[in-house]
């Protein structure tokens, strides 16, 4: 097997600079992606392996780069909202919320109470949906084909709920600057309550079928251990950070929206990894944190349903919005970590800079450290446990 035929690059200069590490004759260079069943999107990981052991890894991004930040400068404030759905398309409600909150902080407006409650319900249901996909596809990566279908059974219901409230199943554009798009239809809140009940029963199945499965534990415990120091140094956030033992959740520690109230009422805890099956910060811990978070999100939704009020939900905004000049960085807790929007306004009709700090982008940086030394099968397990969405990595 020769190595010269396998370095791909658009230009020779680029190809030479790509792999600056020493190339030994017997190492095999394998491309994971861009088309691959396990990279969770269009991403390419160039892996150098000595048989089954990985000796080097390089991530190549940009296959899904859709210039979201440039578009942010070219459209008006309200028009940018559908673009926010599409970076992390699995948790579109969260993205909407992040952007809306960033603009609202520049404007200094208050959101009606009912809108806040509905926002939190939608965002937490979205979190459940996103973790369901992370969990189901992770099972598939590891070889268990069945939990994926069970997860999608619940996710279908969640998407049907969202379709009832805003008309879309995946990219909602529902949470808008100043409030929401429209109010919930009659009967929606009751259906959400039913969903919570059924989901809590089915949640037990996920734990039993995959999380406690001996083979799954063998495949993920002790694999891809991310230490606390490395997690903080690489700017890792979200379930990955909590699985490494760092007790940090923006909803509790830097609360936004009504989360301070919800946490004070004791409606949710933040699951923290503990190295229960292997070492602290391994793939099993990350999966465990996500599964536990699903249950906590249901608890938050129940609290909001119990404290629901009547009232307006749509913000009172002019058709052409002009936001006062200034800069603002507002971050929320995405299912993947800290989603930050840094917007700069000069008082005009659109922003002059919309910077999106995507959690998957920072979380992904650790694979270049975690992969070497692992087996090829472990490489898949590690990449899957990071739970990236390439739309957010590339924007």
């Amino acid at each position, binding site marked *: 097997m020769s190595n010269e035929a396998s370095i791909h690059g658009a230009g020779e200069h680029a190809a030479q600079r790509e792999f600056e590490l020493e190339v030994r004759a017997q190492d095999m260079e394998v491309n994971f992606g861009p088309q691959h*069943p396990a990279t969770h999107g269009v991403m390419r990981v160039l892996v150098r392996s000595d048989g089954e052991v990985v000796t080097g890894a390089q991530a190549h991004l940009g296959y899904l780069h859709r210039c979201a930040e440039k578009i942010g400068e070219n459209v008006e404030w309200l028009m940018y909202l559908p673009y926010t759905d599409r970076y992390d398309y699995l948790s579109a409600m969260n993205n909407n919320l992040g952007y809306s909150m960033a603009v609202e902080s520049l404007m200094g407006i208050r959101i009606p109470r009912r809108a806040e409650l509905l926002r939190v319900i939608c965002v937490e249901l979205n979190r459940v949906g996103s973790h369901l996909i992370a969990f189901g596809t992770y099972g598939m990566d*590891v070889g268990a084909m*069945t939990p994926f*279908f*069970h997860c999608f059974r619940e996710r279908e219901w969640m998407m049907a709920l969202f379709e009832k409230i805003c008309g879309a199943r995946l990219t909602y554009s529902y949470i808008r600057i100043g409030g929401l798009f429209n109010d919930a239809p009659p009967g929606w809140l009751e259906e959400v309550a039913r969903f919570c009940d059924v989901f809590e029963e089915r949640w037990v199945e996920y734990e039993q079928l995959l999380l406690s499965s001996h*083979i799954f534990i063998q495949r993920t415990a002790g694999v891809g251990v991310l230490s606390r120091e490395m997690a903080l140094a690489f700017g890792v956030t979200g379930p990955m950070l909590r699985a490494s033992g760092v007790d940090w959740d923006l909803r509790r520690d830097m609360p936004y929206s009504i989360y301070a109230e919800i946490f004070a009422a004791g409606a949710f805890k933040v699951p923290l990894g503990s190295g229960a099956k292997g070492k602290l910060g391994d793939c099993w811990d990350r999966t465990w944190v996500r599964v536990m978070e699903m249950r906590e999100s249901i608890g938050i939704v129940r609290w909001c349903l119990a404290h629901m009020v009547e009232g307006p939900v749509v913000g009172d905004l002019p058709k052409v919005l002009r936001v006062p000049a200034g800069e603002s960085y507002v971050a929320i807790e995405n299912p993947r970590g800290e989603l930050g929007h840094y917007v700069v306004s000069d008082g005009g009709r659109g922003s002059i800079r919309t910077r999106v700090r995507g959690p998957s982008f920072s979380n992904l940086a650790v694979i270049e450290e975690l992969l070497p030394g692992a087996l090829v099968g472990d490489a898949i397990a590690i990449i899957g446990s990071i739970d990236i969405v390439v739309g957010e990595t590339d924007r």
Partner: protein
Amino acid sequence: MSTGEGNAFLDLLNAVLPASVPSWIVVPSAAVLAIAVCVALISVNTMFSVWLERKVAGHIQCRYGPMYTGWHGWLQSLADAVKLLVKEDIVPRGADRILFVLAPALALAGILGAMAAYPFAPHVFFADIDLGLFLILALSSVTTIGIVMAGWASNSKWSLLGAMREAAQVIAYEVPLGLALLVPVMIGGTLNLIEASRLQSDWFGMGWFVFKNPFALPALALFFTAALAETKRAPFDLPEAESELVAGFHTEYSGIRWSFFFMEEYTGMFLMSAIAAVFFLGGFESPLTWGLRQSLGEDPGFLNHVVRADGSTQTLIAIGGFVFQLVCALTLIVKTMLGVFLMMWLRWTLPRLRVDQVMTMGYKYLTPLALLCVLGGGLWEWARAGWGS
């Protein structure tokens, strides 16, 4: 007893053809007929297994599986077969053409050869081989050569990884497979499948080897696990690990060549289950066959040679014997299919083991356990035989 008495194909041809046809035509024709039936059986089994797999997968995953092609999708396999036949035949550039074309044929040839020892019924078999079990184990290993050839010849690193994993896995699990099979061989004292089945006809048809020796049940479990690894079924399906290696060693294959690999896999599953059924679970025997034996005699054949008054022999079909052979055949098929179903059930429930875990399990756990079973089983048999007194 290789081409002689009791072989249904030979008897049938002898009865049908006029007596003037010399035996050097009749015997090979019987062989050709047997091979044709074997290939037909394998094709039907594959088509049925594909349908069964998809239905089992569907129901485990809270959905139905194929429903549109025929009643509950029973024509789905036919539709798939037609689709595969008309697909473009692609050989990747840079692939070793001869090996690429030869590999699936070799994989299938090995398992087809092993099917020669599979008996339908006590009098309906392709060949009554005294070393039947040995032949099956030996020939089913030939498929590994085909698979490694496929991985190498595809000129793709994914395929090569899959092929290397397959070679390592098969070598690791051949040992516990053979050792676990030693236990029923010791109980029965024969490697001949038909003979072994006949030896389990006591105890009202429930005198199966698995009940006759306390070490036979663990041996069955070990055999089944090793068989899962040999046939590359989950949790040992690394060589074709879909989510890791796209499709492993058969990534570059499409159309009919790909279907050869799948025929090889399903036939292997069928054969391993059949071995388990014959050597552990009684083979043809069940209380029903015991009952039939009571009324029809010890070994009812379905052809009766009647000597007429004028000295010529006439061959008639004996209804009782025919029923007996049919019941035997169905019993074996049902037992085999139970094993196949169990393999499918496990595939859709369990995740996949990593390659080093597969090796650890094979060498460090299964092999010592298999050795213990052989030791214990042998001592038990020796004790049963009176310690050699």
